[in-house]
């Protein structure tokens, strides 16, 4: 699908995502993810929730989407839909149109703090610890180099190269 085609089949959801029939995507179409069991709007909200839990401004939404993609199954869908519905209800209760429609991160974080002890929140947060930070593709964004044995370790690659002390 081209960018133009994708955008022509979608509607904006908040400022961060566009959703269409069976997919959620970035407004610039830099990435798109099909959804199977979850409503696209639910997946978009879940991705925003993931970012608000572990916000890293240098990490693109795509990686958060990958981190929560595992919940897009028939098995998990009911719990996720209910959890996101509760999140939206909390946002509405706080005077916002929806969770995604809550413009400031601090307001979204306040909503999350209010449900921090819930099983749903803890499930999403706990899953992100490995779902987000164990993605090899995000490691370079933190400077982490991962496996080193195949390159002979660092004995000749800077194990002691610090130069600012």
């Amino acid at each position, binding site marked *: 699908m081209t960018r133009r085609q994708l955008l022509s089949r979608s509607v904006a959801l908040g400022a961060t995502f566009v959703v269409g029939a069976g997919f959620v995507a970035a407004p610039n179409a830099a990435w798109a993810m099909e959804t199977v069991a979850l409503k696209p709007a639910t997946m978009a909200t879940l991705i925003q929730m993931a970012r608000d839990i572990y916000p890293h401004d240098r990490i693109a939404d795509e990686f958060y989407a990958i981190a929560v993609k595992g919940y897009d199954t028939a098995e998990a869908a009911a719990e996720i839909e209910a959890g996101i519905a509760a999140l939206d209800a909390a946002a509405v209760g706080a005077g916002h149109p929806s969770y995604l429609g809550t413009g400031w991160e601090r307001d979204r974080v306040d909503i999350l703090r209010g449900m921090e002890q819930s099983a749903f929140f803890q499930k999403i947060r706990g899953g992100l610890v490995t779902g987000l*930070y164990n993605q090899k593709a995000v490691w370079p964004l933190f400077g982490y180099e991962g496996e080193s044995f195949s390159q002979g370790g660092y004995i000749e690659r800077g194990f002691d190269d610090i130069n600012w002390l």
Partner: protein
Amino acid sequence: MVAKFELTDASVVVIIGTGAGGGTLANELAQKGVKVVALEAGGRYLPEDYLNDEWDSFGQLAWLDARSTSGDWRVAKDFSGLPAWIVKAVGGTTTHWAGASLRFQDHEWKALTNYGPVQGANLLDWPIDGAEMAPWYDKAEEKMGVTRTGDRPGLPGNNNYKVFEKGALALGYKDVHTGRMAIQSTDAGNRIACQQTGFCFQGCKWGAKWSTAYTEIPDGEATGNLEVRERAMALKIEHDASGKVTGVLYADKDGNQVVQKARIVCVAGNTIESPRLLLNSASDMFPDGLANSSGQVGRNYMRHVTGSVYGVFDKPVKMWRGTTMAGIVQDEAGHNPERGFVGGYELETLALGLPFMAAFLDPGAWGREFTTALDSYENMAGMWIVGEDMPQETNRVTLNMDVKDQFGLPTPNVHFDDHPNDVAMRNHAYERGMAMYKAVGATRVLPTPPYPSTHNLGTNRMSENPRDGVVNKWGQTHDVPNLFVSDGSQFTTGAAENPTLTIVALAIRQADHIAREMAAGTI
């Protein structure tokens, strides 16, 4: 020629576990001509199998059988099913350990005498001392190739060490160096020098770090006197009407439950499984568990006062590069009660990869306070606190009758509450560690809570008087003459030092004793 012994061969010594204690004991006995069957719950993984990947390695090596926790320690909240980060594999936790090899200080062998009674603590003097252990430490250091002992040079300092050293010297610390490490600083024997790869905790792919998996075990097997049975989970130690042990019921790799007969049984399953096995071996004759007339089996669980300090700087450190723990400050290791606590602590360099940093930096935390710290991961330096904690009777391993394992046996529950002395020591160490990094210009410091325990000690402790502990000065149980404990569970007190060197020294000494007594026909 690898030995193979019959299940009915009642002349063998059965050792349960192949880590620092069991693996060393197995080789030492085999070298002396004693026939040994070692039962190892895990599989056999060698350097070519180890993984430079934190979570994948954890899945490969960690002991993940069901366990539960209780008490006020934060591990019980954040990692309720994982009290300890230890290994289920041939070589046990010597695959995972970082290599720090420190002798006890003389005063630490006599904690009760030197510290005096401490309210709420169950302090006791070891029935042995530094002079008794010195020649055994010599042998252990030689066997393991410990740097800065003998004529072995120290390891070079990595980036993380250089930050640590500069901070330590700025605070006036004097005893600062790259550690006494069982990691080769030169090529020697079958082990090559450290290649500064990192991933010491995931098994050393070069074999530069000492692990029984590729030293003691194959050396012992080469004698023809040692048979290691992998994926063999000990379930119960059996005894006869006279109260002597006669063999071990275990589940073999195919799940069959069989009994290996034995002349002597040595328990070395680490400080959680060893007391669990003794408790699960209760019988009509020993209703409270084997070797438990004192009631001390499972009690006095110690895990060292631990914690980490990470410092964030304005420029890169790349702490993950190089040897994980080759760096130490020993100035705080002495007993100096003016600090507000008894005993002392070591500060040692430590690094985690990004995946484990995310899991362990502040478990359960979220939001920008947490993520901005991780954003600076590349600019972090790290250190670990390891200090003496107080033995407490109520800190203990008990049988959880509500949760059974795959064999239908009760699983272990690990209860731990910090002693006020532990809290005071940890806070002191946090303050010192943060001051070290601030002295080098840290823009942020992070006093990080203890991880699931790697130093698990004390649950079958050594005592002069049988009323006070489980084993005598040889690791022989007070109640059953042909039953020994050969791991860190025999520690009377924990001292400030990483325990492996002492476990190995005790195992070499115990092997000498067992072989001598067997020859004399007394056991």
